[in-house]
């Protein structure tokens, strides 16, 4: 028996449950009640409401990514400069919340936002009653949910960074600011790229957070898709929107890979 045959059960599984299901998106996008048509597809694509929501989701995901990067980079940088044992322990502390059921953590935030914050600041109304308030609340919780996903790859890259390069830069007369911007930052680009991908892509498809924060009065692209499949099922619309989403995710992953092209194996995870 050749060892190759061990992969066969998986290959069958892969075709049945990974590749084949993807075809259903295309099937339902162009097949309405057994008839092949592009009518629904075109109708959905021409509907401005969906594009507005997609645009809002992109902005939200960009905001989340930038804030996560700004908050997460210093965390990873500080951790990577600590003594090994101490850093190991503290970094575990940073990653523990990531393993905690995220729906439950999101629920906790909704309680904090609805009850604790108004109590603390003596507000009579919840901040999620205004549209700006809802936007801020959703952004806050998204940043919360994705921050560890930014810190992890950054920490991995920064702690593997060759410390003698920093010493060399200092020996050659660079001050610490210059060393950071000319040596550390460029060398940590692979970490930044994979952190950004790990935050941006899930953030664009997030639908749990907007559904739970602000009593579901704020919707992102994920919520629209959820709606088209679960709440008011219309598979053709949902499938078309999923195709748009997939194209978008694919393009942003390709852009990210382009920035990372010098690095071998800068995988998504």
């Amino acid at each position: 028996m050749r060892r190759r045959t061990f992969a066969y059960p998986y290959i069958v599984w892969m075709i049945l449950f990974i590749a084949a299901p993807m075809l259903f998106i295309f099937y339902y996008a162009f097949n309405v009640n057994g008839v092949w048509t592009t009518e629904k597809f075109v109708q959905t694509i021409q509907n401005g409401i969906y594009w507005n929501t997609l645009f809002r989701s992109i902005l939200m995901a960009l905001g989340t990514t930038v804030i996560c990067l700004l908050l997460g980079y210093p965390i990873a940088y500080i951790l990577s400069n600590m003594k090994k044992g101490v850093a190991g322990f503290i970094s575990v502390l940073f990653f523990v919340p990531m393993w905690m059921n995220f729906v439950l953590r999101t629920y906790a935030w909704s309680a904090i936002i609805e009850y604790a914050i108004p109590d603390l600041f003596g507000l009579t109304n919840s901040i999620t009653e205004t549209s700006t308030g809802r936007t801020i609340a959703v952004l806050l919780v998204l940043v919360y949910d994705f921050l560890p996903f930014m810190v992890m790859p950054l920490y991995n890259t920064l702690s593997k960074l060759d410390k003698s390069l920093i010493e060399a830069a200092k020996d050659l007369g660079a001050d610490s600011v210059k060393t950071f911007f000319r040596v550390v930052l460029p060398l940590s680009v692979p970490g930044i790229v994979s952190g950004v991908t790990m935050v941006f892509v899930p953030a664009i498809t997030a639908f749990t957070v907007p559904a739970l924060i602000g009593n579901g009065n704020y919707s992102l692209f994920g919520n629209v898709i959820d709606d088209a499949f679960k709440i008011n099922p219309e598979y053709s619309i949902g499938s078309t929107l999923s195709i748009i989403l997939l194209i978008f995710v694919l393009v942003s992953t390709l852009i990210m890979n382009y920035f990372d092209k010098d690095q071998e194996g800068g995988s998504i995870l």
Partner: protein
Amino acid sequence: MKRFGRSLKYVYLGIMLVFLYLPIVYLIVFSFNQFHVGRSGEADYTNIGKWMGFTLTNYGAIFKGEASRALMLTLEIAVISSVAATIIGTAAAIGINSMKKRSRSIVLSVSQLPMVNPDLVTGITFMMLFAFVNSVLSNVNLKINDFVKLLIAHISFSIPYVIFSVLPRLKQSSDLLYEAAMDLGCSPMQALFKAVIPDIMPGITSGFIMALTMSLDDFVVSYFVSDLRSTLSIYIYSRAAHGTKGVNPALATIIFIPLVTMLLVVNLRRLAKDREYEIQNKKVKMK
């Protein structure tokens, strides 16, 4: 100045840790809160922000009714799916490793699909697949139930994580190991189980743990796949989203304590191992 800079670093890390733990601590604190119990005998957890007095009754409530069923289902699915994913995935990795370059790269790129694909899309595709299969099966009066659907979906999204944590180990391990075992009289199967698998065990273990946590933590895929039965995440979501009676905050403690214990044990062991390794290295260097 330097000391000031250092304490500023710790202050920053501290603030970030507070931010990360705030919701968890919030729930754990309120898990000891008294909630108003309605006529149906079910507590109303919606007003989770007002301290009404200390009690332990919330902990008893977890093990009754829907919450406990959801907890059980989550554990069952997680254990069965991660064991299955580990077996299929490890076998697959061994097979893929001895494939020719071209077929290997095709299999590997398809395997990356569930990892790259947004959960939302994975969930939707499974939902449509099962709807289709069930509509075909209904002709012969058969139906795939929620348990099987959840199982298939969870196995599918876990396998790639197992493969990608076993493969690097296999690359490090020499092909000669397998051949040597056979030269010494092992059958191919024996060679595999006695020589190759022990050598790649760390990869298998980490793949298994990854599969387990992916399954335990999944919400999006399960939400789209399951029609009637609730995993813990679905239960929490439905209780939170539709503004019924809220979620029992004691669930947070029940999840958090085992999790922290497990992670601390794993990491302390790893730290101890690292230190041992360092000491050994020092000894070697001194020689």
